[in-house]
């Protein structure tokens, strides 16, 4: 498997094709327009569909229409654009259609900035739209993981018949890293004949299919919500992903951090290790389902005195960390979110303040 040096945004586009997704709808927005530019060239080469919609709102519903008729489909956007797709994501969840959304986060709120950020954690994991729904959210920490998570997302979306989100940031999108596309991550599309509006002739059936989310009857609506909830419970059992870094030592402080921020933390951990200071990192790879037990276990290790959530935001994941530590340890937070990424030295300074 030859490695190739690729920009994150383009690698994510290529990953979709390698995963068997031939349909991409999107709207330009910095810092991820390169995905669209790349797929505008690539999709025709594989007889795929590329279309730039008139807005992220419209794109959200192009995704919904295409998915609801049984085809694999993806879109990519960035923070403000993902806000505009919030309603469609709620509809897609309620109507139970598979779809892959990629958010290459930029600074917010408002027009914010175009530099990397992690300010959409709540939007992604607590619901950016209305109603009780969840996205399955995966957070890569670099271009290779962005590729692998994107490729896996299509199978997961079909397994759970719902939207899956890859939550990257502007750094992952813009930087270049050597990357490979594992061909064992390509999954065959699932059979969708019992629900997708693929045309009765296509299904050789005279039973028509209906994709909707309106349930005026309270019992029907409650049942639909219970069906969604059962999927989210299943995700919590089967889809939790995380990484422990330096957690086999007697660390005094546990950092909880994800994505780009967690890589900086790893560097600072290595540097402190040389000074004889052991610090552990618990890195969630799945943000929903959140690695609750892993965070609790790592926080309550004998040697660990305190926990700190380090994010490129004003503090969002920290609330989940506090929830999972259950008061067993002091939980602190450090974050910056103008777009500058905290340096390892800054992290070391913060950690030393806790010792």
């Amino acid at each position: 498997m030859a490695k190739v040096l690729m920009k994150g945004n383009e690698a994510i586009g290529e990953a979709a094709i390698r995963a068997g997704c031939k349909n991409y709808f999107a709207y330009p927005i910095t810092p991820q327009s390169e995905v669209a530019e790349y797929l505008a060239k690539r999709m025709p080469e594989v007889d795929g569909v590329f279309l730039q919609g008139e807005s992220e709102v419209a794109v959200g519903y192009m995704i919904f229409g295409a998915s609801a008729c049984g085809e694999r489909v993806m879109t990519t956007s960035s923070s403000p654009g993902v806000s505009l797709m919030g309603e469609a994501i709620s509809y897609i969840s309620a109507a139970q259609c598979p779809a892959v959304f990629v958010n290459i986060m930029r600074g917010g709120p408002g027009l914010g900035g175009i530099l990397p950020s992690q300010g959409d954690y709540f939007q992604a994991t607590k619901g950016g739209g209305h109603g009780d729904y969840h996205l399955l959210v995966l957070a890569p920490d670099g271009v290779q993981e962005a590729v692998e998570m994107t490729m896996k997302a299509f199978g997961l979306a079909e397994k759970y018949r719902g939207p899956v989100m890859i939550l990257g940031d502007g750094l992952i999108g813009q930087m270049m890293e050597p990357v490979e596309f594992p061909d064992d991550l390509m999954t065959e599309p699932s059979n969708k004949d019992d629900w997708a509006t693929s045309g009765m002739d296509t299904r050789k059936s005279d039973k028509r299919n209906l994709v909707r989310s309106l349930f005026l009857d309270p019992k029907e609506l409650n049942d639909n919500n219970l069906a969604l909830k059962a999927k989210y419970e299943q995700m919590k059992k089967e889809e939790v992903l995380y990484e422990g870094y330096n957690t086999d030592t007697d660390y005094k402080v546990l950092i909880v951090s994800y994505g780009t921020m967690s890589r900086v933390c790893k560097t600072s951990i290595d540097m402190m290790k040389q000074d004889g200071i052991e610090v552990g990192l618990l890195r969630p790879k799945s943000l929903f389902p959140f690695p609750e037990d892993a965070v609790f276990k790592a926080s309550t290790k004998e040697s660990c005195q305190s926990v700190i959530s380090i994010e490129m935001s004003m503090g969002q994941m920290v609330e989940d960390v506090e929830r999972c530590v259950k008061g067993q340890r002091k939980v602190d937070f450090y974050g910056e979110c103008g777009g500058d990424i905290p340096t390892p030295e800054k992290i070391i300074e913060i950690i030393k303040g806790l010792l």
Partner: protein
Amino acid sequence: MGKSFSTPKSLSDNYTHYCPGCTHGIAHRLVAQAIDELGIAGRTVGIAPVGCAVLAYNYFTCDFQEAAHGRAPAMATGIKRVRPDLIVFTYQGDGDLASIGMGEIIHAANRGEKFTTIFINNAIYGMTGGQMAPTTMPGQRATTAPAGRDTDQTGMPIRMANLLKELVTPGYITRQALLNPKQINKAKKAIKKAFEYQVEGKCFSFVELISTCPTNWGLTPVDALKWAEDTLLPYYELGDYKVPE
């Protein structure tokens, strides 16, 4: 002497929820007749709006999707792009299409998306109980224009067929009405032609249908037809506004 008449197969046998005399039911029948006559039910996917016709899928027997308010043209675009072999139609009211969904319909028409839109223009918001729509007439009362539409505050009613015909992209843009048998028969031909253009993969097709809303106009069904004839037709002139070569 005489002829037969029966319910088209593409209509389900459910009773509709529409108010007595509401011409939605006529529009549904004409669409179903077009689908039957072209023999395309097996590959047709309808898209219901948000509005009185949100439950349209209960009255058709083909595959159906239910759109968010105003977004049916985007969903139709999504289907047509990934499955160009499917016949797709959106069925939308004036609040759905001309208000919240204006962006979607203009861009779908401008891209020349090869689906068919059935646009019910009854100059009012029906489902939510009679609010003003972009197509509400000057001085026409609505629950959000209790003294009648004040065009100084809310502008003039929007004529969708006239608007869409200005797009340079080829398409079939027509305005018909459902107010008497002659108009209905003409509307039936126009709807069938719209679907034929799609079956041939020729162009985007848009059929605006001047319709009634007896309940929210506060008129009997027959008087509503008369009011529409006298008040709507002079402003919303019928005819083909754009026909592809």
